[in-house]
């Protein structure tokens, strides 16, 4: 059993949660994730480890379906049943020169430890953070000390550049030579960033988040075609060279369980009397 230490709403439908765990902080590196199970009935929910401290770790969650709603409804002081981690391979952090890190939506959260580590490794770090609108833009102040430059984009123009993150990336790439790009966000965003990176012959790491079951490489649910090879995201990834990912197939697989998810959510809301945490 692992205690929820704190829970804070940092944007609409987005929660910043610290959990107690005796060991994960000792081993977790940027880019890695964990899987948690809330209780006997729960799914196994994969989440990126955003930060750690002695005996604790931090996750940032967007509520999109039953499992994330249930998780964000757990109150500080209450416990969750299982946490396993760190899983996946750490990001390949090195001193590259100039790098550009791009986060979209809740993807900004998993990008944070990577940006921080890149800065610590001595890179010039350009950040692009994108959201649908101003209220949904998370962690901006936390990023600032770790960035040399920051671009913000919003779909509706309520903050920064109006448009998607690729608009800002275009500007950056015109201005200077970027050695490596990291992009984390919705699959469609990662796809378009990867296409732009490919045109510029720039390595572009993306962190894939396909549906997972075990997260230990024994089911193949998380498979993705990368460079003509089938890879299991949980053990071979989660980061891959986005230029090699077969995106369209992956994006369609993401919605495989849509009917079931909808049913689960509707049932859950009914049970909760239509209201949530």
């Amino acid at each position, binding site marked *: 059993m692992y205690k929820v230490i704190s829970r804070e709403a940092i944007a609409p439908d987005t929660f910043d949660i610290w959990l107690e765990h005796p060991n994960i902080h000792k081993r977790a590196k940027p880019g890695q994730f964990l899987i948690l199970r809330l209780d006997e*009935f729960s*799914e*196994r929910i994969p989440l990126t480890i955003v930060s750690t401290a002695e005996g604790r770790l931090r996750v940032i969650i967007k509520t999109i379906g039953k499992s994330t709603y249930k998780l964000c409804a757990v109150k500080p002081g209450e416990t969750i049943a*299982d*946490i*396993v981690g760190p899983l996946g391979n750490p990001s390949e952090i090195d001193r590259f020169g100039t790098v550009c890190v791009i986060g979209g939506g809740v993807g900004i959260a998993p990008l944070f430890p990577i940006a921080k580590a890149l800065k610590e490794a001595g890179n010039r770090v350009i950040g692009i953070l994108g959201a649908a609108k101003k209220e949904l833009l998370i962690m901006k102040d936390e990023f600032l000390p770790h960035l040399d430059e920051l671009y913000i984009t919003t779909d509706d123009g309520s903050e920064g550049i109006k448009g998607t993150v690729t608009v800002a990336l275009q500007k950056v790439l015109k201005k200077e030579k970027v050695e490596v790009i990291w992009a984390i966000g919705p699959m469609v965003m990662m796809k378009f960033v990867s296409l732009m990176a490919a045109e510029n012959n720039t390595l572009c790491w993306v962190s894939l988040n396909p549906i997972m079951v075990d997260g*230990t490489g024994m089911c193949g649910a998380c498979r993705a075609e990368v460079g003509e090879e089938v890879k299991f995201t949980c*053990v071979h990834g989660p980061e891959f060279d986005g230029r090699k990912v077969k995106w369209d*197939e992956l994006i369609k697989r993401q919605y495989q*369980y849509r009917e079931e998810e909808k049913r689960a959510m509707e049932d859950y809301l009914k049970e909760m009397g239509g209201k949530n945490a």
Partner: protein
Amino acid sequence: MPEKNKTKMRELDPIQRIGCFEEVALGYSKEEALKEAARCLQCKNQPCVSGCPVGINIPGFIKALREERYKDSAMILKGDNNLPAVCGRVCPQEKQCEARCILGRVPGGDAVAIGRLERFVADLEIPIESVVKPSIHKKVAVIGAGPAGLTVAADLAKEGVSVTVFEAFHTAGGVLVYGIPEFRLPKKIVSNEVQFVQEMGVEFRFNEIVGRTVPFEELVNDYDAVFIGIGAGAPRFMGIPGTNLNNIFSASEFLTRVNLMKAYLFPKYDTPVKIKDRVAVIGAGNVTMDAARTARRLGAKEVHIVYRRSEEEMPARLEEYHHAMEEGIKLHCLTLPVEYLGDANNNVVAMKCVKMTLGEPDSSGRRRPVQLENSEFTMEVDMVIEAIGQTPNAVLKAGFSSVQLNKWGSIQADEETGRTNLPKVFAGGDIVTGAATVIEAMGAGKRSAKAILKYLAGV
């Protein structure tokens, strides 16, 4: 293979059982068990025992049973087999103990139903005080709580060794909990058996993936010996075009969702599982039968097993195959899928197949299937489950890089002792042999436990 003089076991009616996940085989009543036990000839040379990978004293437990000394019978079983309620249900008896029974070798005769009797005795749940010897002040780490790991843990604990089991999942049992379905092996039985191991003082550390969340080297340093029993965990895919279309799953994913995560009780349990109308399951082993019968229970209208060899080469346990056929599952032998076809949404809609014929025997001794020319045809399916076998989980093993592997990528270990290239480290079960059986994994565990004790006595 109709049974002749073996005492029949009652089963749920096929129509009734495809609507639920209740156990199909209902077990013997006392009268039935005594009747069957009476058939045993108590052979002096005990041919049956040599067919059991853990060498259970079969005539001994049967004798005690028919004299209605149930506790003695249970003690004999537990002495050689920590999981008799499991083995009585899932052992391929027709290839193991019962294959050697003298009664089965006479024309027109049936072997004694050893497995069913074993199950009967185990299911009486007679409490047996496990005799745990005083501590010998040695500690052993066991990696993986499948049949191999559980056996090592129990056998060492009995001898006064302090044992810690590291298990990747939140619960113990390995394939017994995430692979084999409830209707064949109720999970309550597994948890009873695990509890028995726990009561001997074995400590379980769940949610620990050795080589990922705990370094293997740390265990090697901290413990007097280490046993690796991590199973043959990764699914193989056929790798034909279209493998990543929607609604194509590995049997491991499908069964893990249903068994470990209880997706058959969705939405009470949160994990969903897909089910469609026309399901093809590729393969013909136990895993195939389990996946096919699970699909049927979840509501698939048609379930087709597609197998590239012939009925004779099918590796599945006979009883499961019969059960599958009774449940209306169709078998297509000598058929090999070569491509999956999808619609605009990437959902699989059909499978291109070719017909096969059997050629010369291959290395496994089974006749090799070869493709018939111009035999291509299309089968309409809207869901596919591939059950063509498992391989060692290569990536997890990266965390065990100091352990030597064999040419199949499994761990190289001595068959008699489980010794690996590292002096302190032993291995057994599917991670050494490739996918095999529960009782073989337990047999390997038994032998390793003995070798570990010897090793501990020497250091």
